[in-house]
Each structure stands twice: as structure tokens, then as C-alpha cells.
């Protein structure tokens, strides 16, 4: 989960002797069989022949991919990427200072905040979607509070819509963002920031000339993780968004769960997978670069 763990540990003769070589085989076989083969099957399903109104039969045809080559799906892919990127950006913008402040707190406070975050992590997408739609509704939501204070004329609804969807997505991934940023941020030597202060930099200047450049790789890694994660959200866009906010993941589940069109769902998943892999690859590259500099 941690963005900075992507580089493999350096080989050490001592550690090597402590672990027998066959230890690698068990997880290698397990993951190959149970993780890689599913993807291979998915690949074969994506080119299988769809039986309209029925299931699918083995075959090799590009029909499902051809169906994706339309302005309609181009727009959906664009929407998915734009919404996820937006949510990731907002989430990191909130989580990065949060993590920095958290890492500067007393040990006990840090423990409490971490427990709170881990508790929030245990809310499923279903509950988050439902609660936020309640919170943003006209009848029971924060609109009533605003109206009571006199901020707005009467209670109004903020859901469904882009705002509600962004709120939900940010909520969903915020704990992950903090937990991924936490190790590198808390390992950042606080004396570096003190040094900048001593040399005349104000807090903001210190943040932008010291903290941000040093944390560039972890922040990018966390952003990409959060981005990919939101790319896979399929319930929140349905519950909190309008149809034009439905992401590729919504359409994938739609095809798989409602239309029984597994070849088409698989084809869309493969496309989404390629987009995600592209970005994970990017993280690995960035991680390696920063790893060499230490």
C-alpha cells in the first residue's frame, strides 16, 4: 500500500542466508495461479463470442473492443479519468498537510488519530454512499444547518451531482492517502524544516522549498494510488453522481451484473487495466528515481 515500498530491498548476504530460497516459490505459485490466471481468463473472455440474450461462448473476435471505439466510450473514459484525477488531487491536497501536521503531533495523539482513520477505513463504499447522500440531502442534510445559520435562504440539496460525488470519492480514499503518506512524511527529518526556518524562510516558503520537493515522489505515488483506487469506484458514481458522471467502472459492473455481457465487461476492464498499469508503471519509475538519490 505504501508508495515508497516499491523498490526491492537490497540483497544482503546475511538476510539471504536467513531465508531459504524455496520460500519464494509458495507465494509465487499461489499468486500466479490465483491472480495472473484470472487475468489471462479475463483476456480470453474479452475476445469471446457474445451470445445475445444469453452468455458467451469461446471464440476470438474483436467485437467487444470495436464497440469501445466510439465517441460515447471515449467520453466515458475521459469522464472517468477526469473525475478520478480531480478527486485524487483534492484528496491529496487535503491529506498531505493533514499527514504533515499529524506527524508533528505527540505520540499519543498520533495513535488516536490513526485509530480514527483506520476506523473510517472500515466503512464500506455502500455505507459511505448512503450516509453522504443523506448528509447532502435537502430533507436531512447540511443544507438545513446552513439555512438555520442564515447562510442560504432555504434548505437545498447537494446530491446527486459532481460535488456530492467528489465528496464521496475523497472520503473513500482519504484514509488511504494519509496512511500511504504517513511513513515518508513521519520519517522526514524535522531538522530540515527547522534549518529552513533558521535561514529565514517563513512557514509557507519552508513548505514549498523544502517539504514539497523532498516529498515529491511519495506525494506522486500516493496521488496515483488514490487515482487508481477512485477509478475503480463503481457504487459512489451511481449513488452520488448523475448519469453523465457514471465512470467506466459503473459501465463494467452494469455489463457484468445487469446485462450478462461478460465479453464486453472484460474488454472494458482490460482497457481500464491498461490505463491503471500505465500509471502504476509510472509510480515504479518515480520510486526508483528517488530511491537512488538517498
Amino acid at each position, binding site marked *: 500500500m505504501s508508495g515508497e515500498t516499491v523498490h526491492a*530491498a537490497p540483497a544482503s548476504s546475511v538476510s539471504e542466508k536467513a531465508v531459504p530460497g524455496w520460500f*519464494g516459490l509458495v507465494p509465487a505459485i499461489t499468486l500466479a495461479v490465483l491472480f495472473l490466471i484470472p487475468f489471462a481468463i479475463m483476456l480470453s473472455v474479452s475476445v469471446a463470442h457474445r451470445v445475445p440474450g444469453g452468455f458467451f461462448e469461446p471464440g476470438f473476435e474483436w467485437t467487444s473492443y470495436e464497440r469501445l471505439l466510439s465517441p460515447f466510450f471515449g467520453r466515458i473514459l475521459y469522464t472517468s479519468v477526469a473525475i478520478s484525477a480531480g478527486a485524487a488531487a483534492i484528496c491529496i491536497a487535503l491529506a498531505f498537510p493533514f499527514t504533515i*501536521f499529524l506527524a508533528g503531533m505527540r505520540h499519543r495523539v498520533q495513535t488516536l488519530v490513526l485509530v480514527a482513520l483506520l476506523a473510517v477505513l*472500515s466503512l464500506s463504499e455502500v*455505507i459511505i454512499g*448512503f450516509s453522504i447522500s443523506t448528509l447532502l440531502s435537502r430533507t436531512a442534510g447540511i443544507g438545513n444547518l446552513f439555512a438555520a445559520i442564515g447562510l442560504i435562504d432555504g434548505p437545498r440539496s447537494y446530491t446527486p451531482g459532481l460535488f456530492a460525488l467528489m465528496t464521496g470519492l475523497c472520503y473513500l480514499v482519504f484514509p488511504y492517502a494519509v496512511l500511504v503518506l504517513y511513513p515518508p512524511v513521519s520519517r522526514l527529518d524535522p531538522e530540515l524544516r527547522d534549518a529552513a526556518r533558521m535561514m529565514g524562510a517563513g512557514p509557507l516558503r519552508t513548505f514549498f522549498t523544502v517539504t514539497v520537493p523532498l516529498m515529491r515522489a511519495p506525494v506522486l505515488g500516493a496521488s496515483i494510488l488514490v487515482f487508481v483506487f477512485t477509478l475503480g469506484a463503481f457504487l459512489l458514481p451511481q449513488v452520488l453522481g448523475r448519469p453523465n458522471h457514471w465512470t467506466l467502472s459503473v459501465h463494467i459492473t452494469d455489463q457484468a451484473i445487469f446485462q450478462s455481457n461478460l465479453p464486453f465487461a472484460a474488454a472494458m476492464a482490460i482497457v481500464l487495466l491498461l490505463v491503471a498499469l500505465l500509471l502504476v508503471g509510472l509510480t515504479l519509475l518515480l520510486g526508483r528515481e528517488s530511491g537512488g538519490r538517498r
Partner: protein
Amino acid sequence: MTRGLRLFYICFILFLLALPIIVVTGISLNEGRSLRFPPEGLSLRWYGALFQEGDWLQPLRHSLIIALSASLLSVTIALPLALYVWSRGNWLGRALHTLGIAPFMLPPVITALGFLVFWVSVGMYGQMLATIISHAIFLVTLPVVTISLGLRSIDMALVEAARTMGASRGQILRGVILPLIMPYIISGFAFAFVLSLNEYIVAYMVAGFTVETLPIKIFNSLRYGYTPIMGVVAVLFVALAIVVFGLIGRYGDLPRLMGSDRSGER
């Protein structure tokens, strides 16, 4: 920014994060069979109902069995994987590390769909074992990350010292390395357990209604059921997470387990 402002920011964000929990808590206290917020009439009857209504007990049992077995299995896979990656810098180590990180790094919908076609092909769709294995693979990343974190914090001098004192490979593993990374193994297990308990899309695609878990049941009750029990379940799960991680925080060094190196200094 001053210390006070920083604390305010943290508290404000925590407050926002708490809002949905307040909503589900409110809903779970409804007297009638409706999901109203603020609740109409306060009652704890739905908390009792969860353990009496058979159609909620069964998913509860499923969820607990799946979460327990899946997180055990994922630790069983993650431990040798992390040890191997830690000890070897070869291609297999690198490949394994990527394989261990990938399941959780991909959009869950994709992983779920992969499992769906896999289990349909194998003929195990709809069996609890399929859900358990799928969850174990999907969540294996969490113990991999925490155990790797623990391994990297080991002082190699300890291993060298053990060797000079004549310990065999197995003795070093059991007597030195495992005790040192045990807290990280436990936190990885807790992570996987709590997330498996709340996982929806993989469980739904792999077994759907045949092996109904609590999140699936909650979603269904949101679709049709109108019972505040779904709020009860959410509240209990949050409480469970607080207890599990609270205990880890109470008896261990949670910031350190989460990867902080300099906690305890201040």
C-alpha cells in the same frame, strides 16, 4: 502555522470524517423500520434484532468466517513472500514484490471481474471457498506491506549475532526474525481482517447471493429492506475496528507499525 491551527485542521478533518458515522449511528437508533435521519424515536431494538433475525445472522456468520480465513490465508502467503523479497534482490524477488503489491493497487472492479471469470471457469462460482481465496489474494498487499516494513526495521547485527552464536537458519527465523516482525504480522492481519469484513465488490461478483456477506446484505437492505439493521452493522464494524486497532495502539506502537520511524521521540 501555529500548533493550535494545525490541531484545529486535524480536528476539523476528523470531524468531517466522523459525519457519516454520526449519520449511520442516528439511523441505527430509529424506532421504526425506516432509515430516517435524524432518527424518529430513539430505540436500541435493531441492535438486538441483528442477532435474532436469521437472515442477518447468516451473513454475519459468513462475513466473520470469510474475514478470518481470508486474512489468515493472506498472511500465510504474504509472510514467505515478504521474507523472500527482503532477502533476495533477484528478478524473482522483484517480480514477487510487484505481484504482492498489484492486487490492491489495481481498480477493485477489475480484480473482482477477474475473479468472477476465474471461478466461473473453474466451476467454483458461488462457493464460500472462492470468496475466501479471492479476498486473501485481493488483500494480500496489506500484510505484504506491513511485514516488509517490519523486516526493513530489523537491525542486521542481531541476525549476525545470532549466526555467530551458532543459530541455524531455522532457529534465526523462528528465534530472531519472527519475534521482531510479529507486531507487523499482527497489524497486517488486522488490516486484512477489517477490510475483508467490509469488502463488497469482490464478494458480490464472486459469490453474489449464494454466499451473502454483511456488506452485500447491507446493500440489499438499502435497495429494498428499509431496516436500520444496516446502520447497526456499520456502527458495530466501526466499533470493532476501533477495538482492534485501539488494542494494537494500546499494547503496541501504532505509529511505528504504520511506518513512522521517529515516533516516541517527542
